[in-house]
């Protein structure tokens, strides 16, 4: 493929597309492995307590069963920071679904049968699994995400809010959400002496390598993590998960390779999820809608084992000029599964609350919601006072206004009928930070004019392999087909996880750097490549330290049109439009699909998705794809995506911002705002189910018997 078009920004088709459409792409448990055994975990059947006995007699009676592991006999692991990985190390159970035992057998069916035959006895203890705004265990965590302050205060919120002409005080709630990538968490583990090789479904081979090395007390060089193809993750595979530890442990015990694919109904408890949030927002404004005081106070939960504190108020430190502000996070420990990252952690639930509140404020002030946002556009990042490296939120709103036909919208509430359907439209803003993490890469020139680029990147479906090839070829100044990029193995130069929308920047930068230097070295050599080839390694740690201080974020605007059936209470999205400003888009084909995929997940969050904690049993009731509804083809309308050309020299050599997460930020608010416009009913707790819309709709019908 020779092309004269610029390589960065060209819609190159996915490099591994052929393998994926022919069924030959190998995922974690697809590799042919001799003498393989299969493992099946046994989830704990109490929400909290101690295991008092593990009876494996019946399970071991089947000659196909090779081992039954529990805390009584499992190999001892070294401690790590992640207590969810200390599997089968203690009789204590911290939440229902935590692994209590593991069956290993020569066939999957035998392992499954054995797991069912293991008798685990427990001494249950009382549990506490329900988050409330006044939970007695609420405390102020030290930080909410690595290095992010828990609370921030500017000016005098209380006084200014109390005197404001227009005041809004509302509480928004988001339910627990589960990532549910299509590929369940799975691993194949093999030992060769003290060398461990795992084919694992994860978002970061280097990270999993390090944690396995720690757990098993081995040098990192002894651990080989391969994640050539990964069936999605959305944050739930951003860290090592218990399945890979169990597989490695089992393989060591039975002295055979072991495959462990978690059954879908076990995922909800052990692979992370988005915590529920309760968010109180108070806004004090003048009658023109200028925000003078803003408070965003978040209440959320973590597990007894630990977990990620959902930093939902952080968006209010970025979005709007508010001279007096307060952003806080309070958290409580409950006997629940351990929460973790799900697509746009913090921003996604935080913007549901903030952007719903902005819509409410617009209505209270009688100002168009787009105009309201424009009026509150800050000149610097409100919390840090730093200049934005680039911020084109207003341009996104304006472009969306034009494309969506916003000016034709009648602002009156519940004013548009089509038979029994009420029609409405809504808007919300999107934002996501620009992260870059230190990574390494190597570029090698062969004497035959070919190039190999190595980086332990993870292509979880984003198109990383493809875009890195574009970046490499561009920096080398050669056609794409001369460059082969290898990713998906911890044996390659160490690199960061595919998370925080940082992959392309974090991997592309050292790839660009290594290739640029290689090109210069080759030029100095008069383009004659030495017989053994020429290799250049690059690391961007210093480049990151040298960066100037800027507030770096991507922005966007999302528009939704919905119809609400007044008889059934069902909401359907008719149109969705997203306009984004995310730096330079390096591959429009894969980028578009990322944006739309994010918006679709946002649509799921608005209307379909949510896990409910069962107070008596202490686990999530939705444990399969029949009860946890991810959007299906028929749920998704025409989704339109555009982006604004954005030049930003303060990012990285490619000029790109991450795009994997911003698509889900703001979608749910745009849809909830559209539902309000259609019906006059404000839904502040997601998802917008018929059951929550029916009572107010029925009330409205009675009030106006037309």
């Amino acid at each position, binding site marked *: 493929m020779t092309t004269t078009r610029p390589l960065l920004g060209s819609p190159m088709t996915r490099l591994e597309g052929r393998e994926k459409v022919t*069924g030959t792409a190998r995922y974690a448990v697809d590799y042919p492995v001799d003498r393989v055994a299969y493992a099946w975990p046994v989830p704990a059947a109490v929400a909290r307590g101690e295991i008092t006995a593990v009876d494996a007699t019946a399970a071991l009676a089947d000659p196909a069963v090779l081992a039954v592991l529990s805390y009584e006999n499992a190999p001892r692991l070294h401690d790590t920071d992640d207590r969810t990985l200390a599997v089968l190390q203690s009789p204590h159970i911290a939440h229902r679904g935590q692994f209590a035992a593991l069956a290993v057998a020569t066939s999957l069916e035998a392992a499954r049968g054995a797991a069912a035959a293991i008798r685990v006895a427990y001494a249950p203890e009382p549990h506490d699994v329900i988050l409330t705004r006044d939970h007695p265990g609420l405390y102020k965590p030290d930080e909410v995400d690595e290095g992010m302050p828990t609370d921030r205060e500017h000016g005098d919120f209380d006084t200014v809010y109390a005197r404001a002409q227009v005041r809004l005080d509302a509480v928004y709630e988001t339910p627990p959400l589960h990532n549910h990538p*299509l*590929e369940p968490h799975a691993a194949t583990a093999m030992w060769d002496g003290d060398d461990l090789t795992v084919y694992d479904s994860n978002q970061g081979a280097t990270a999993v390598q390090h944690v396995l090395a720690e757990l098993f007390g081995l040098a990192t060089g002894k651990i080989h993590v391969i994640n050539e193809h990964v069936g999605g993750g959305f944050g739930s595979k951003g860290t090592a998960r218990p399945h890979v530890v169990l597989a490695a442990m089992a393989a060591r015990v039975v002295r055979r390779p072991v495959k462990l694919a978690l059954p879908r109904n076990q995922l909800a408890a052990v692979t992370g999820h988005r915590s529920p949030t309760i968010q109180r927002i108070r806004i004090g404004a003048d009658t023109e809608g200028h925000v003078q005081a803003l408070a965003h106070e978040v209440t959320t939960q973590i597990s007894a084992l630990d977990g990620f504190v959902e930093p939902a108020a952080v968006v209010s430190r970025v979005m709007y000029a508010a001279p007096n502000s307060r952003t806080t996070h309070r958290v409580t420990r409950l006997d629940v599964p351990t929460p973790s990252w799900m697509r746009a952690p913090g921003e996604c639930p935080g913007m549901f609350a903030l952007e719903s509140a902005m819509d409410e404020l617009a209505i209270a002030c009688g100002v168009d919601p787009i105009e309201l946002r424009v009026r509150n556009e800050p000149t610097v990042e409100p919390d840090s006072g730093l200049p934005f490296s680039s911020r084109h939120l207003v341009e996104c709103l304006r472009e969306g206004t034009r494309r969506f036909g916003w000016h034709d919208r009648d602002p009156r509430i519940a004013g548009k009928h089509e038979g029994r359907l009420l029609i409405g439209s809504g808007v919300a803003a999107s934002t996501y930070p620009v992260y870059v993490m230190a990574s390494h890469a190597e570029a090698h020139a062969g004497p035959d004019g070919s190039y190999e680029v190595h980086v332990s990147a993870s292509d979880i479906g984003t198109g990383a392999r493809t875009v890195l090839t574009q970046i490499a070829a561009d920096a080398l100044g050669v056609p794409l087909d001369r460059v082969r990029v290898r990713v998906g193995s911890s044996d390659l130069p160490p690199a960061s996880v595919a998370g925080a929308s940082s992959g392309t920047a974090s991997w592309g930068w050292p790839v660009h750097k290594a290739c640029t230097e290689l090109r210069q070295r080759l030029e100095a050599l008069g383009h004659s490549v030495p017989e053994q080839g020429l290799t250049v390694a690059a690391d961007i740690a210093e480049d990151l330290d040298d960066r100037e201080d800027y507030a770096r974020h991507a922005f966007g605007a999302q528009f939704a049109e919905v119809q609400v059936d007044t008889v059934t209470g069902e909401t359907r999205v008719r149109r969705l439009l997203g306009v984004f400003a995310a730096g330079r888009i390096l591959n429009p084909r894969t980028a578009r699909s990322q944006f739309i*995929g994010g918006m679709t997940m946002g649509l799921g969050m608005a209307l379909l998705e949510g896990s409910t904690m069962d107070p008596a049993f202490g686990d999530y009731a939705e444990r399969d794809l029949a009860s946890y509804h991810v959007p299906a083809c028929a749920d*998704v309308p025409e989704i339109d995506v555009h982006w604004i050309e954005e030049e930003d020299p303060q990012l990285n050599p490619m000029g790109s911002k991450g795009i994997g997460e911003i698509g889900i930020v703001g979608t749910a608010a745009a849809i909830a705002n559209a539902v309000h416009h259609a019906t006059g009913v404000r839904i502040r707790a997601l998802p917008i189910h018929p059951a929550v819309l029916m009572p107010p709709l029925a009330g409205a019908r009675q009030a106006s018997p037309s």
Partner: protein
Amino acid sequence: MRLTFTVNGRQQEADDVWEGESLLYVLRERMGLPGSKNACEQGECGSCTVRLDGVPVCACLVAAGQVQDREVVTVEGLADYARQRAEGGCGTGACGTSLDDAKRWQSKPADGRTGEAGAFPQQLSAIQRAFIDAGAVQCGFCTPGLLVAADELLERNASPSDEDIREALSGNLCRCTGYEKILDAVRLAAARTEEAV
């Protein structure tokens, strides 16, 4: 039991099969055909979709005993299956396969393991090419099932409406793409096939 059935045009046998084992397990673990994916194992996601005597089914819900003497087509055999169909054969077994067709249609090498890409270079079917060209693949885990389902739709209905496509594919979940590009791919495959006729 000894299980005898046809997979991708080639007769296969497996011994000591428990009748209740899923067809998905037989394909993935016994036949070395891991293209069909297991994402839920209870008929909710469509990742395991294969053709059984021409009918798209969730392989996770079909018991091994039910496929005795029947014909299965998986994503690994889709390209050859589509080619044979284009050449006027049938491939499902339901309408009989001529000896010549059967000889031509061998998507699997004789050792029973499908090789990695390139081991037996094959021409992609229209729907496979369209999935690549339209950008309908992200992580690819839903892709094998979607391809089998979409190919079956186009076999029945050469120019499906958007509603036909959504209906036919509504049993196949995709968590990555938002479906837009998948719809595009089906439209593209239909348009190209029409042009070619």
